[in-house]
């Protein structure tokens, strides 16, 4: 519910909404985006976020960090793709064999 009656109410509501959007545990390290204030648990995620959400405002260092994080991500994605393919094959042949036996 974000229905509001007056502009002042609306302002308070949106600040309250921003506070409610994030929930960082007290003892956790957070890498916070300097453009929009969104906290992240890992540094590469912050770099990716900056590149995706604020592409025109980055300095050279941030662009470099984004490229590095993006490459690292591509590697872990291809590992995941192999695992997913394996799981699909397992589901397919598993069911095929069960249906043959039952």
């Amino acid at each position, binding site marked *: 519910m974000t*229905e509001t009656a007056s502009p002042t109410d609306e302002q308070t509501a949106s600040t309250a909404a921003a506070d*409610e959007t994030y929930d960082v545990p007290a003892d956790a390290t957070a890498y916070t985006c300097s453009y929009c204030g*969104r*906290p992240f648990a890992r540094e590469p*995620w912050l770099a990716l976020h900056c590149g995706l959400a604020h592409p025109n405002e980055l300095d050279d260092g941030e662009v470099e960090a984004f490229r590095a994080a993006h490459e690292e991500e591509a590697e872990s994605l291809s590992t995941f793709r192999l695992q997913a393919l394996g799981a699909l094959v397992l589901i397919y042949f598993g069911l095929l064999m069960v*249906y043959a036996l039952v």
Partner: protein
Amino acid sequence: MTPGRRRTVALVVCGLGWLAATGTASAHGGSLAAGGRDSLTIPTWLFLSTGGAAVGASFLLASFVTDRAFIERIHDWGRPLSGDYERVLGLAGQFIGLAGLAAVFVVGFLGPTNARTNLAILLVWVGWWAGLAMTTYLVGNAWATLNPFKTIAGLLPTLDRAYPARAGSWPAVGGLLVLVWVEVVSPLADQPRLLASVVAGYSVVTLAGAFVFGPDDWFAHADPVERVFRYYGRFAPIGRGEGGLRLRLPGMDLSTPRLVDGPDEVAFVVALLWVTTYDGLVTTPAWRDLTTPVVEAGVPPHLLYPVALGVGFACFLGVYRLAVRLSRDVSDTYLAPAVLARRFAPPLVAIAVGYHFAHYLGYFLVLAPSLAVALTSPFASPATVPTVELPAWFGAVALTSVIVGHLVAIWIAHTAAYDLFPARLQAIRSQYPFIAVMVFYTMTSLWVVSQPEVALPHL
């Protein structure tokens, strides 16, 4: 039977079963069509795991699409459709809605008492709840214009009290549960007089609410029927955007941020899914066996049904909230649980749409000729009414629609996750608990479907 053939049969049986027991009002609305649940040719556990595996495999397939630009292009594709004809269409729609409501009252109270020939029964169940609801998610939300209660409320004066913001959409959640409870425990699809009385009761509550809080606030927040159609309409290719009517790919409007806004609206989406299950659950032998000792111990059955409805809803909602917490842990994000709950609820609408279509397409096609006859002669009660025999392959259509509903749901969740999380693997991981929940919902529905249908016990 060869294994291959057996498998095909099993799949078709899945479809037929789904056809028979899903969708709101299936037990009673469905009684007109004289449909029953088919018995299975494969063990129940295998039937359940096949359904669950189908959902899981769809997720794995969706996870192969990791190109952000491609996902956004699919999500954002659209064409504007607005024009000057809208006003004329709107007026015609309001008139048709009012005429329909008048027909339900007049024929419901004064027409033939036979459910198969009474226009009020056929108009509400076949024309409105099956036909109009189907056009809502296949074409666009016409109920927003047709809604006769909104038209009447717009003409009446209003006190225009401020709608209590804290109440949110909770009245709609309660209203949906009450409507389904009334529909399940009373013969609404058999007795025209009763149906007309219930519609009259609903009119009084709705118009009173609109009178106090103003039609805009009432229909935006508190009216359950308006909200069901609005969510179904979000699945449709034609929707209302910032600049008027707009053409989109089916289902893609569900991944728009802020569609579901707050825990109350999350609860409504979960309730929409739960009532489709509840409706079938109460006609299973397991339900009868489970409740017989309870009723014999002296618990009144009229208390049992609403309590079970409430407890089951709390259970579904609890499972969804648990998934939200797990998703937050798995994806290691600092987004608040409420944010995740809001973004991942809309895909459930697509699943509800798939079930609704699977159940009501056949129901609508079988009874549409009866509706046409009743429309031309509302007060005649012919001994035989025309119905359509559905071909044997029709079960495959139902199965396909359920699968498409799940595929769209998984795709919408995929899009939402990519929108929320900067890292793509994080986005995929965040989906694990939600996929588990979808598998749980699917297997619950399938289990209900695989049970033989018995008469509503204790009532």
